[in-house]
């Protein structure tokens, strides 16, 4: 027995050769692992992604060494320390080696301290608020992201006013527009459950937490700065993904980041046209409605073939105009449609359990604010969705404002083509939309 103790670890000459091969394989293998790093990660589209990926490379190197060390020792043990044939011998009675045990406690401890320090550095560098954020035309604007089951809505508070003094807010739906070098800072707020805003190409992710709407919710922030990706054609697009389980449509709760090449391209291709469109909506309410309805997250739950929507969380909007008049006795189709958008809890189509978010002039979530004019246009558009619409086609120009008056309890000035009128500034009875 004593001999056994002295001879331990009993390594044959063959094992020495194996050990040398093993070291070589570990070094090469670890190097080989690192070559996969760019392949298993999305494009490095933000400044943050570069430092995160460097950290990941270090983790792969250390992990690779540990991997080869342990798998290699296992392999060597399996090859060299097997009982041959019917061998009944026991191994050496070797109970341990305090020095070795201290070594394999201290070295991993030092490694994790090292990793903690470099991770800390990367983290502070990436999460630090930047000096100039959301720069557009030399000004900082606020960009808010609203998460609702199951869609993202991005709104840009442009800081400009319409001729009537209404602040212009661009609602770009599920698409975030930015440009190379812009320090993006998004304010995230959920309308219902927890969501998580993840842009894989930017390596950023942040949960949206339900807060008390009465005290301004519980906004969270996310920051990143897009950078140029070699070989990319601009404007480049990257997916936005919801990473926190939020219900039925979690998997399709996605969006797009559009990175423009520079600020002028951003202004030209997105920002200025969007403002122009708000200031100059089409005069025809149906045409305008078709545009307006796509600003909101209706497509995340409803099916509507004419717009190629196919979600099934909520009832289908195909042929809605044929049914809307029959849903509630004594209620016109216009009223029904308007009311179900504004007071979404009022009706529940049998078979659908989820309550729709509310849209109107006075809702909390900026992404869901809908002026009476917008509602008018959307109702007018939905009234065209059907074979023989229940809507009062002849008197549409008066029936819809009446319905909206019933809904909002206020008279509405429908004044298309002249800019967005403030909701409650109107006194005249509307109807002169043609």
């Amino acid at each position, binding site marked *: 027995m004593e001999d056994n103790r002295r001879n331990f670890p009993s390594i044959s000459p063959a094992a020495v050769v194996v050990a040398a091969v093993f070291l070589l394989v570990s070094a090469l293998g670890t190097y080989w692992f690192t070559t996969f790093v760019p392949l298993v990660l999305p494009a490095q589209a933000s400044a943050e992604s570069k430092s995160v990926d460097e*950290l990941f490379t270090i983790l792969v190197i250390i992990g690779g060494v540990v991997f080869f060390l342990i798998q290699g020792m296992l392999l060597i043990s399996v090859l060299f320390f097997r009982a041959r044939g019917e061998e009944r011998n026991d*191994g050496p009675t*070797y109970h341990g080696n305090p020095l070795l045990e201290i070594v*394999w406690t201290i070295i991993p401890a030092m490694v*994790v301290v090292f990793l903690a320090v470099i991770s800390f550095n990367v983290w502070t560098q*990436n999460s630090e608020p930047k000096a100039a954020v959301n720069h557009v035309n030399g000004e900082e604007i606020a960009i808010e992201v609203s998460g609702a089951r199951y869609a993202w809505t991005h709104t840009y508070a442009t800081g400009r006013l319409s001729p009537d003094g209404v602040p212009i807010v661009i609602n770009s739906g599920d698409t975030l527009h930015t440009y190379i070098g812009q320090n993006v800072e998004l304010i995230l707020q959920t309308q219902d459950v927890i969501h998580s805003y993840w842009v894989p190409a930017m390596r950023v992710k942040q949960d949206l937490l339900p807060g008390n709407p009465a005290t301004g919710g519980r906004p969270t922030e996310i920051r990143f700065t897009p950078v140029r990706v070699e070989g990319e054609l601009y404007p480049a697009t990257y997916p936005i993904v919801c990473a926190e*389980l939020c219900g039925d449509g979690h998997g399709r709760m996605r969006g797009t980041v559009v990175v423009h090449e520079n600020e002028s391209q951003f202004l030209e291709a997105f920002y200025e046209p969007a403002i122009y469109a708000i200031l100059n909506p089409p005069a025809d309410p149906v045409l305008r409605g078709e545009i307006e309805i796509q600003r909101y997250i209706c497509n995340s739950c409803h099916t509507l073939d004419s717009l190629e929507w196919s979600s099934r969380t909520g009832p289908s909007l195909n042929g809605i105009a044929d049914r809307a008049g029959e849903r509630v006795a004594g209620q016109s189709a216009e009223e029904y449609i308007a009311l179900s958008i504004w007071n979404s809890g009022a009706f529940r189509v049998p078979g659908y359990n989820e309550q729709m978010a509310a849209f109107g002039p006075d809702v909390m979530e900026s992404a869901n604010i809908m002026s009476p004019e917008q509602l008018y246009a959307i109702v007018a558009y939905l009234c065209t969705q059907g074979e023989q619409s229940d809507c009062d086609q002849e008197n549409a120009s008066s029936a819809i404002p009446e319905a909206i008056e019933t809904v909002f309890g206020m008279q509405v000035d429908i004044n298309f083509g002249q800019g967005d009128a403030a909701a409650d500034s109107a006194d005249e009875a509307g109807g002169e939309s043609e």
Partner: protein
Amino acid sequence: MAPAENHEAAAVARPALSDYLRWSVDHKIIGVQYGVAAFLFFIVGGAMAMLIRLELWTPALDLMVSGSAYNSLFTMHGTIMIFLFIIPMWAAFGNFVVPLQLGAKDMAFPWLNAFAFWLIPPAAVVVLLGYFVNPAEAGWTAYPPLSTLFSGDGQTLWALGAHLLGISSIMGSINFIVTILNMRPPQMTLWRMPLLCWAVLATSIIAVMATPFLAGALTLLLLDRVAGTTFFDAAGGGDVLLWQNIFWFYSHPAVYIMVLPGMGVLSEVLSVHSRKPVFGYRMVGLSSMGIAFVGFTVWAHHMFTSLQPELRIPFMITTMIIAVPTGIKMFSWLGTIWGGKIRFTSAMLFALGFMSMFVIGGITGVMLAALPFDIHVHDTYFVVSHFHFVLFGGSVFAIYAALYHWFPKITGRMMNERLGKIHFLFTYFGFLFTFFPMHIVGMLGMPRRVAVYVPEFQLWNQVISFSAFVLGFSTFIVIYNVIRSYYRGPIAGANPWRALTLEWATTSPPPPTNFDDDPIPYEDPYGYGTEAAAVYLAVVERAFDGDSSGR
């Protein structure tokens, strides 16, 4: 019953199958009851996993009627695997083996032991009932408000069932602690205890300290759901992060509840089947306690994307620190087999498979602790892969190792080694190719818990699904092996592995009182390779198997 193949040695009488269906206070019967019940739930949860993988064969939603149906499926998969499979499965081996290893005649509270087991079937009925009425679809983590304001009655039943299972787990753990601390014969000092007992002790301490947090959280959740309170509803002065904090304060330690006993099994199996003492016995025992302790300080790394940014750093550091005691175990096991005389039994193969797979889970664990990288892969398939490497590559491999190792003691018959090896190969490669590619899809941008995904991930998902089906198939091999060996396996004898711990110093299966008198443990539970150990083993052999045993 089919006749035994081996007629030479008279089989020791074993309990009739009907004994296992009745209330019994014998820890060995209860152990088997736990084990069989847990394995049945493993099959149910596994079938659900197969359905999940079938749905993910294509990027579109085609198998399930809705995203919700998919959500409730993986909710049940997680709940069943954690609460009804792994945790009860360790109660099974703990129950059967720990009193025997200690030299005790039963658990400290036999009646409580039986009661804790019999809570499981009704709890399972409640949980499964929830699946059929408006099922829970908030994941096993049940984050409010999804689990409060936005789900149906199934969520209430889920919470009730989980509550019952938590109570069962607390009762079982109190029993283990008292048994291990109080029921040892005089010669079985703490530092002579086999490492499985150390691991079960550490596990039980965690369970008694942590499970009440789950109970508290579930109580508040139930109040929110049925009594109109708003503990987790921000609109009513509550806080959604309160749930996450309490839940993870239980559920992170619960990971160690699920894996520490497996580590104990590893120490036993590696030492016995490589005929060499556990390297650094005391450090291995103490590292269990270290993991138990540090395990309570890391919970918020599950909340890296929701926690206030400045609070994330401390949890990153504690999470990294926990790699150290885990590393001690890994290196100690390597030291154990190094220079040994390894027997490639099925139990040993699964133990080696554990080491080989668990190390990957450990490496990705450190990667996930690195906050900036975690931000990218949080809630993605990378995480799914990581915890399956820990809970399947770790716990389930250890469960299989324990099954092959202790089956002879439990039933008195050996399992078929050839089938065991085939089972190992299918499991090992099925597992590896199921879960390793998940790291990659996760990093590339696939979130977890989705029924639909972008088409560019389809090839990866098909590789994963195919391997998952292979992994699923491997389960049939072990089921067949267990049933066949129960009836036709060769008679095992008292100590087929020639192990030094006390559970082998009695017949297989042991008599109802385990030992006729207080047994005297061999001075060193892992002291293989000495003359004295050989003499001890020869005496055990003579005492229980007579001269006919020529193994």
